[in-house]
């Protein structure tokens, strides 16, 4: 991981078109970041991706999956 120190108002540029600027450091330690990126670049909070990754892993099917599936199929 590249570690850089920035002050409020300073930025880093990532790759060809992404700029991250430190906008504000709150007293509670919360930091507001401004991100300029091409519209096609998706930006996510890390914890959201972690949640989805965890849910995908939980969803791994086991050999018993067919039997479990029968419980949600509508009655014939």
């Amino acid at each position, binding site marked *: 991981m590249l570690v850089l120190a920035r002050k409020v108002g300073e930025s880093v540029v990532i790759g060809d078109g992404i700029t991250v600027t430190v906008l504000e450091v709150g007293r509670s330690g919360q930091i507001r970041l401004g991100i300029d990126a091409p519209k096609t670049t998706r930006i996510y909070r890390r914890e959201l991706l972690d949640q*989805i990754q965890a849910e995908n892993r939980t969803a791994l099917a086991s050999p018993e999956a067919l039997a479990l599936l029968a419980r949600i199929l509508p009655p014939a």
Partner: protein
Amino acid sequence: MIATLEDCPVDTITVDTMIKGPIEVPADKVITLVGPLLGFEHLKRWIIYQTDAGPLYWLQAVEDRRAAFCLIAPFQAGIKVDMDITPADAHDIGAASADQIDVYTVVVLDNDPGQIRTNLAAPILVSARSGLGKQVVLEDPRLPIRFLLKDLGKGGAKAG
């Protein structure tokens, strides 16, 4: 000599599936995930097949029998949601428009039937025409990560 197109043998591959064991599928049914299944980035080639008619499907990695998932086609199942599929997402999977895209969501088959659920926040988009797919993350508060399938038929999305 091959006289007609019908005489051409269709390329098939054998995929060892978790649910049905080895099955033969046409080679052109293999989906390449250009945007990976989060947590399974190393697996690019998958097939989608059904064991019964209806909105439920199985996603199976071609290269790893253990990587198998139950999917539901949410719109087919009557789940009332709007999903904002962007032109960029359509372009990534070689689809000219949203109506050429098949949408699936990952199902968690919990041992507690009341907890069997699907992730509406991260659907898997597939273009059958191009053979490409991706899992997208939709940051929409109306789309829960845990939509309980026992709520199907009650209308709307209810977070679990």
